[in-house]
Structures are given as C-alpha cells and as structure tokens.
C-alpha cells in the first residue's frame, strides 16, 4: 500500500461528513470534508484529488456544476454523486457525461466504501478492502 487515496467529500449536511470521514479514513483514504460547494470548488482549484464525492442537490451550486469544475481541471479525477432517490434520472444522465458512479441516499458507509474501492481500482491504485475484514464482518 503506497500513497493514500486523496478524497474530497462535499455534502451540505454536516453529519454526512462527520460520519463518513472516519469511515473512509479506515480504508486508507485521506479525506477533506466540505459543506459549502464554493469552498470545495476553491480547494479543487488548488489540489488534485483522486476522488470527489459530492451531493447532487445543494443550495448554491449543484453537484453537476462541481463535476464540471473537476472535469475541466483534473480529467483523471473520479467523481461520485450522492443523490436523493427522486433524482436518480438526473444521476443516470450525469453518468453518461462521465461521472464515475452514483449512490442514493440513504446509504450505508460500506456502500460508499465499495464504490470508492471500485474507483480506486479504475484509477489503477486498488485499495485492500479485505484488510478491514474484521470490522466489516462486524458491521
């Protein structure tokens, strides 16, 4: 296991970041959490993340706009969308545009971990999901 996966997590619900950060750190990611899309976009402008996880519906700027920023700046970065169930159509459409995957609320931490593992593999830097075996079984 070489370099940790750099993950940016954006959701305007604070609890999402609070719970997912430790969950992702456990599988060897380095996570930065944002609640405000503008701040997140600013950060993306500065740093290349391996994976960006963003909510699709937010007050000021929606997930697709964030995705466009990422795509322009870092074409290699994988973007994962969090959606409400009602917006699944929108998410499918987004996938056609190059979004890596989407996950519908409500989800379990493991669901996101699985998608992140898939993304890591697609990036050519697979993470050892099974190293967490013990906890996962418990979960």
């Amino acid at each position, binding site marked *: 296991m070489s370099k940790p996966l750099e993950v940016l997590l954006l959701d305007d*619900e604070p609890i999402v970041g609070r719970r997912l950060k430790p969950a992702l750190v456990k599988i060897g990611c380095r996570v930065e959490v944002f609640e405000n899309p503008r701040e997140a976009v600013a950060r993306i402008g500065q740093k290349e993340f391996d994976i960006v996880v963003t909510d699709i519906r937010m007050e000021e700027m929606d997930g697709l706009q964030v995705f466009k920023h990422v795509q322009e700046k870092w074409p290699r970065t994988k973007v994962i969308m969090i959606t409400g169930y009602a917006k699944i159509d929108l998410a499918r459409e987004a996938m056609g545009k190059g979004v890596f995957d989407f996950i519908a609320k409500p989800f379990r931490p493991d669901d996101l971990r699985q998608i992140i593992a898939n993304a890591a593999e697609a990036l050519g830097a697979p993470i050892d999901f099974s190293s967490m075996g013990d906890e996962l079984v418990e979960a």
Partner: protein
Amino acid sequence: MDMHITDIKNPEINHENDPENMSLHERPSISIRAKVAISFSLFFILSFTVTGWSYWILTKLETKIDFLEIADNYMAEIQQARRFEKNYLLYSTDLEEALEHLKTADAILKQKNEQIEKILEKEHFKTMVTYMSKYHNQLVLLRSAKNDKEKELIVPMLRQFGSQMVSFAGEFVEKEQISAKRMFLLAKRVPLYFMSVLFVLMSFVLMFLARQLLLTLNRFMEYTKRIGEGDFSPILPARKYKDEFTKLAEAFNHMIKELDHKHNVLLESHKLRAIGTLVAGVAHELNNPLNNTLLTASMLTEDFHTLSEEEKMEMVNDVINETERAQRVVKNLLDFAREGETAIAPLEIGKIVEDSTRLVVNQVKFAKVNLELNCETNLPRIHGDEQKLKQVFVNLILNAVDVLTPGGQIRIHVQKDQTPGYVLVTVKDNGPGIPEHIQGRIFDPFFTTKAQSKGTGLGLSVSQGIIKKLGGYIHLTSNPDKGTIFTVSLPTTESASEIMSK
C-alpha cells in the same frame, strides 16, 4: 325541449322535504296561478255586473218607452175628448164623439193596465181611472141635460174633472219622459265608465304581475351568477309567501347541493394532486435525515468498542435529532393530507400561511426561487377550515413556482385589509404575468395552460370556491412585465359571523 318539459312535470322531482328547502317551504302559498285566477275572476265579476245592470236598465227603459207610447195614445184620446167637449159647449156639436174617444182611452187603460200599473203604481193608476170615470160621468150627465140651466150646473164640474184628468196624465208622462231621458244618458255613459275602470284595473294588475315576475326573475338571475362564482349557499326565502317560483327555488337548492357535492369532489381530487406534488418533495427531503440516521447508526455499531463515551453520546443524540427532523418533515404534510371532516374554527392566518410555505419548501428549492414571507403581528383571527385554506395558499405558491425561472422571487404579505374586519394575504411573483385575454378565464374550472400531466386547472377554481364560502374574495392583478399578484381577503372572526348570517 320536450324532454325538459316532461322533466319538470315529473312528479318524482320533489325537493320539498330536502333540509335546505325547509325555510322556503314554511310559508303560506299564493301561487301565480291563483293570482291570475283571482284577477280574472275579478274582471269576470265586474263585466258580469255591468252587463247585468245594462240589461236591467234597458228592459226598464223598454217598459218606459212602451208606457210612454201608451200614455201618448191615452193622452191623445182624452185631449181629443176634451176638444169635442169644448166644441159641444161652444158650437153645440155632437157629444157622441167625445164619449167615443173617452171610451177608446178607457179601453187603452183596461188593455194595458198591467204595464201602466207597473209604472204608475196602483194608487196613481186608481186616481187616474177615477178622474177619467168622474169626467165620463159628467159627460154622460151633460149629454142627458135637458136645458141650459142644467148644463150650466154640470159644466164647471166637467171642466174641473177634465182638466184634472189631463193634467194628472200629462204630469206623469212628463215625469216619465224625464226619467227615461236620464236612463238613456246613464245607459250611454256606463260603458264608458266601465271601460275606464277596466283599463285602470287592468294596467294595475298587469303592472303588479309583471313587476313581481320581473323582480323574481332578476333575483334568480342573481342566484345563477352567485352560483357560477362558486357560492353554494342555499337560496333563502325573499318573500312572505310561496308560489311557482318556490318550486324553482327548491330545484335550485337541490342543484346547489349537487354542485356543492361535485365541488367537494373536485376539491378533494385537486388536493390529492397537490399532495402528490408535495410528497415528491417531502420524500426527497426525508432522505437527508434518514441518511444521517443510517450513517450514524452504522458507524456507531461499527466502532462501538473503540468510540469514547462522549462520541457515542453525540452519535445517539444525532440519531434522535435526525429522527425528529424526519418527523417534522412528514408531520406538516400529514396534517395537510389528513382525511376526514374538518371544522370551521378561529385560526391564525399567519400560521396557516407559514405552514403553507413550509409545505412547498422543497418545490421552491427545486425551482431555485426565493420565497419571502412577511407577516404583520397581532392580526385578528379568521374563521376558516385549516386544510382548505392551506390548499389555497399552496396552490397560489405552486402556481408562482411553476412560472418562475431560477432566481425568481415570490413575496407573500399577510396584513390587515384597508376594509375593516378583513385580513389580506398577497402572493406576488415576478414571473411573466398572465396575458390579458386569459385573465378572465383562469378561475374557470379545468382552465390551464400547463401540460396535461402538470396541471388540471382546478387550483384557482377550487380556491375561489373555498374563499367565497368563507365570505372572502380572491382576485388577480397581473401585468405582463411585472408579474402577478393574487390577493386573498378574508373576514376576521368578528365580522365573519355578521357576513355568514346575512
């Protein structure tokens, strides 16, 4: 046409006993038919009297004329007799002729005695006959007188009786002539009087009936207008008695009841649609607290042994808070969607409007428009049905959301109306406005400019019905460039009771 007529005649259609018709029915009945019948009988009686009277007077006149004719003959005869009497005294001609004429006169009296008696009355007739017979006796005496001396004695008596006889008859003839003339005059005038009285009476009856019919028809025109505008309160008696229009009013009330029922069905179906729209938003909104709860609970189990007490406590509290948040999200909608009879109660209009904005919060968010609520404090309460009022405001806001593009503005003001006793809610948007040519139709049921799956066109029609029923009004001010303002005015509790009792 025929079908309608048979419909009306159908004896099964009888709404007398419907509860909404009780007040209509509890009145004495004076039907239009009865009124017409009474007027006609009055005319008939009047005509009959006048005709009968004319007949009577003409018969009377006839007998008078007959009498005058007879009297004329009689007069001629006795005058003739006197002339011969004079001739006899002056020129000593024959007295037979005088007696002859007197005999004829007597014959006339005998022959026509019934007719003459009728007019003269028995007493006068007797006097007349007596005068004549006295004169006759004197004449006979005169004829048999032997010498001039005897004659001299008879002549004064003869003259006296003769002139008495003639003048008595003459007086009567004259009197009868005058009376006949008077009768003629009357008989000539009566038709004229009759005509004028008839004319006055007829114009009066006509005016009275026409006025009543027109007034009632006007009232019914008002009713149809009122019903068209969605006011489904039953017709109350406007007069002190019943007639054929009462049947019409009863039928109207039945129709109003049916319309009200249909209106409620529409109202319910529109509400269901609105709930459908809102549910989509609420379902989405629910995902957030659900997701927060699921993530927190998952991590709590996953890290249960490694977490500090403090962290565990925080996470449990998060679960509680998020569950409550979910409850709040659905509660409002459930309140709105709850089935069953809702009652009219004194309500805080500010709270109703605020609840309505909360119901549509997701739609507002999806559309990326801004909603601003401005509510005056200390407003008087209003009378109303909570759910139905929310339905009105939800529809107004959703209508605005539907026409706004992202960044659009919806401003809602709740304030006192300038008319005392009313509160005012204005919903204003800065959308494209409503073109003038459809402004008159937007309150019509099923009028919509939206795609079939998006709008039924029931919103404003149903809203108007709801507000009208509460004694308020809803109207529109729209300007193609400046957007649309819907104004809802509702009576406060103090004034509502007055309005409802009207």
